[in-house]
């Protein structure tokens, strides 16, 4: 782990989490507003997150277990926002009184 790689790795990790968060945010925003443009932006964020995960896995000196964690997280990010949103919709539908 050289000093320069250490800084770059940290920045990549932060950006990875940021893109994951942006994907979650834009996905939910796009779905609740029915906006295709926002959904596309969300997908772009997710794609960027995947690229960052691959970069971390291939180009940083992190130990294997952390690279595996990042790759698995990258995969999991695909499902977390849709599952969470679907659950929220069901939860609200179940308990919100009729309008």
């Amino acid at each position, binding site marked *: *782990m*050289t*000093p320069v790689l*250490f*800084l770059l*790795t*940290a*920045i990549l*990790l*932060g950006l*990875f*989490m*940021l893109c*994951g*968060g942006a994907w*979650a*945010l834009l996905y*939910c*925003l796009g*779905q*609740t*507003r029915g906006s295709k443009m926002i959904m596309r932006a969300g997908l772009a964020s997710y794609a960027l997150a995947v690229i960052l995960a691959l970069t971390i896995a291939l180009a940083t*000196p*992190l*130990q294997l*277990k*952390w690279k595996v*964690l990042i790759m698995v*997280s990258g995969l999991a990010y695909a499902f*977390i*926002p849709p599952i*969470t*949103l679907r659950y*929220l*919709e069901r*939860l*609200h539908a*179940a*308990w*919100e*009184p009729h*309008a």
Partner: protein
Amino acid sequence: MSTSDSHTLHRSETLYRSQKLGMKYLIAAVALFGVMIVFGFLSALYYLFPGMFFNVFDFNMSKTLHIDTLVIWILMGLIGSIYWYLPKELGREVVGIRAAEWFFWIFCAAVAVVALIFLFVQTGKANMWTLWFIQQGRKYVEAPRWAALGIVGVMLVFSYNVIGTAIKANKVTGIVWVLMIDLIPLVGVYLFAFDSDTNMSNDLYWWWWLVHMWVESTWEILIGIIMAWVLMDVMGTPRKIVEAWLYIEVMLVLGAGILGLGHHYFWIGTPDYWLSIGGFFSALEPLPLLGMVVHAVYDAGMHKMKTRNRPAYIWITTEAFLNFIGAGIWGFMMTLPQINLFSHGTQWTVSHGHFAFYGAYVCGIIAVLYVVKQKVSGMELLAHRRWYWGYGLLNLGMIGMVSALLLSGMAQAFFERATGGSTLMAFVIASEDPWFTAGLWARAGFGIIFAAGYVALVYDLLASVKQVPLPTDQRRPSVVRSAEPEVA
């Protein structure tokens, strides 16, 4: 079934004593928030003007006052919010309210005395007398033992208030159930504030049980509880929904956070399996925060941002975002051991700490302040514009400070640790690096903006607001109202 106006205070309606006590706690919290800013800014200045007050009032005491007022003001904010909501939740006055009122004043007096001791006595000789009466010298819990005992007293009375009221009311809502269970570790781990183990490794091991289990576990649950109440209040979210969400949050926060404690056990003499365990669970800690962001966006979409209390709603939504960014992203950047080896104990940590505390707790407590303002002023709709100033300046100030500190922290980690070899010489070289110093100057500048935001916030909270009628489409009694407290 209560109508939509049950949560708006009419002139004829009076507050429960507990709510009045809650207000006192919140006022004290806001006052200490200001004190915290003063000592925060002072602490920042030592980096820029190193000879300042030398041998009279040095950095360590200024910083102590800054971080201790942080802990106390947030604790008071959390306790005050709970005193505010509890009687409404359980439909009766809080049991033991008189004792609670007394202890509030004892608490304030103790804080004042400790502040005076820190200002004028500061340190003592290396003996137990010093630890009992002047200074314990362990971060966040420097207050002498007599004061720590006082805090235990306050929390025991608080616990009695919560549990006693639930018993007397013969009602334990889901939210109150979580609160009661959370009180056990909240009070229990505070006992580690009294430790003075000779062995630094052992001392720190248990100290982290207090610090981590407060700010990354029990306090997260408290703010979750308070946010549940605020959501019901401000968004009319049904109780069952906030309950389910609260349990999910508790499951995720504690599921990750209990072993996430291990991210403090990398370098203190503990076995190296903590590097793997701590790093892994720490990496999971942002997940519940991500969930909060999703929920916030969903609520925004569903309600189309319509609320009776705009500032509270915006602050609580901001909480979800900044909690994720400050605790989640910033934390994730530095938590893996190979990174942390270099970033540990630098201004990078300071950046993360400030951002995480602000996102996780400060934004939420400010939301409660606006809830209280609305109720006390009898406003049907709180949607003035003056609150934008506090909101904008505080957020700009904080984001500016933590970005500046990140720059300094990265420079420090790079020059002192990664290239420099962590000696005194490396420390000095890093501290004179232009990126490092630029970051600290910028931090001070943004600190001024943050302080201005605080002034704007306080002014807005105190000044009166013009009565604005509800929009016609919101005037009918909302059916989306939390029902009477139910037995769980």
